[in-house]
């Protein structure tokens, strides 16, 4: 049953402070809407429970990308298109640029936002493994002020997150510390565009000075658990070790025990588990080979 627009309220206060004041006045009553690429889909399908919406599209406070000496702060209202076309993101945070490139098609990239991808909280959200790999922090804003929290742990369970009813995500902060790392991003889906991932991976890693042992590594996966996950056990397993056949065998089994894939319309648990293992191994092989050519 299609929604009747007469049943919904939508206002556009035009400034961030006015939006958070509204959220504080009636916590949980107002649903922020930015580009609408998720909210309007639910609305049209008659599945939107909120009746009051507040537009946060194009709020100047939310669309800036601030490049600081040690970190980059990406406004939560930045679209995938603006992420794709940003020089520093392309050069230093290629995992995020890749995720932006393979989310939806061009029209959805022109409207969908990074903050929206976080609060929509899909286990298959393409940008979230990148945020895990870069150890992103979120700046949350409310009338009570701002707080800064690690993205890791922000999503606690399927569609559940540590965001108070009066809070809004203001920005995503990425430390500029991965320039010397190998960046690996891969999405496996039915189609590049307009197809939700069956499995997606974002990972960074670096070999030590001897170019043999893994010095640092962060691996994140999407679509294999109720929330995007960091493979901390796998990371612990490979850190300080040379990447050889025996290690890769252990890695496959560690990946299998770290994930909880399901059967759904897009794929099967069995396929997802096999692909997740293959992708992590492919990343580690690339990391090993990067040492040979260095």
């Amino acid at each position, binding site marked *: 049953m299609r929604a009747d627009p007469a049943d919904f*309220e939508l206002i556009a206060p035009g400034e961030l402070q006015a939006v958070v004041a509204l959220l504080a006045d009636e916590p949980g009553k107002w649903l922020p809407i930015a580009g609408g690429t998720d909210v*309007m*889909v639910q609305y049209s399908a008659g599945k939107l429970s909120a009746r009051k*919406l507040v537009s946060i599209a194009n709020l100047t406070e939310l669309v800036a990308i601030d490049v600081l000496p040690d970190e980059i702060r990406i406004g939560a209202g930045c679209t995938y298109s603006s992420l794709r076309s940003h020089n520093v993101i392309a050069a230093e945070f290629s995992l995020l640029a890749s995720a932006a490139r393979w989310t939806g098609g*061009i029209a959805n990239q022109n*409207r969908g936002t990074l903050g929206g991808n976080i609060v929509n909280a899909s286990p298959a959200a393409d940008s979230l493994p990148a945020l895990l790999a870069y150890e992103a922090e979120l700046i949350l804003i409310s009338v009570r002020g701002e707080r800064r929290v690690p993205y890791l742990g922000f999503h606690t369970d399927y569609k559940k997150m540590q965001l108070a009813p009066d809070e809004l995500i203001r920005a995503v902060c990425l430390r500029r510390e991965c320039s010397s790392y190998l960046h690996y991003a891969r999405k496996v889906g039915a189609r590049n565009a*307009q197809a939700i991932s069956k499995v997606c991976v974002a990972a960074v890693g670096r070999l030590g000075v001897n170019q043999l042992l893994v010095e640092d590594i962060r691996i994140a996966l999407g679509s294999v658990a109720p929330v995007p996950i960091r493979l901390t056990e796998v990371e612990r397993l490979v850190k300080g070790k040379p990447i050889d056949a025996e290690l890769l065998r252990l890695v496959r089994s560690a990946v299998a025990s770290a994930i909880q894939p399901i059967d759904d319309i897009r794929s099967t648990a069995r396929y997802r588990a096999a692909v997740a293992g293959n992708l992590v191994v492919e990343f580690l092989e690339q990391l090993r080979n990067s040492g040979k050519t260095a």
Partner: protein
Amino acid sequence: MTDSSSNGGRCDISFVVNGAQKTVRVFPMERLLDVLRQQLGLTGAKEGCGEGECGSCSVLMDGMLVNSCLIPALQAANADLTTIEGVADDPRSRALQTAFLKCGGAQCGICTPGMILASCHLLNKNHEPTLDDIREGLSGNLCRCTGYMQIFNSVAEAALLRKTS
């Protein structure tokens, strides 16, 4: 700030459509697609999926390709909109029309307005697109006649025509 003293009722919003200033009375959550088709009689934008997957309802909003089925009318306030009807009269898009005709880019026609607008958006940014650029630029537009190669060839031909004209 928009003139949205609506309180759940209708409000007046203004925008430019194909170069002409328009004011419409809408519910703020009405889809831009419905406003264009029902109030303004601009039926070139089609409803395919109604969920941003197919691109049949593509329009340009402030020069950006968007799916009009996903835009609440209020968010289009003060925007500069171009629909396929506006493209039809634009001399810059003559090359696209010629190329789509020549290469068989239009088949049943349902996806064609969206394909043309996505092509406009691509060619405005990229004067010499590769086949990969074209595939990506049109990746959000689905054709159920599945004549994608003719469509890609049409866009490549249009880029050539634009260069030589």
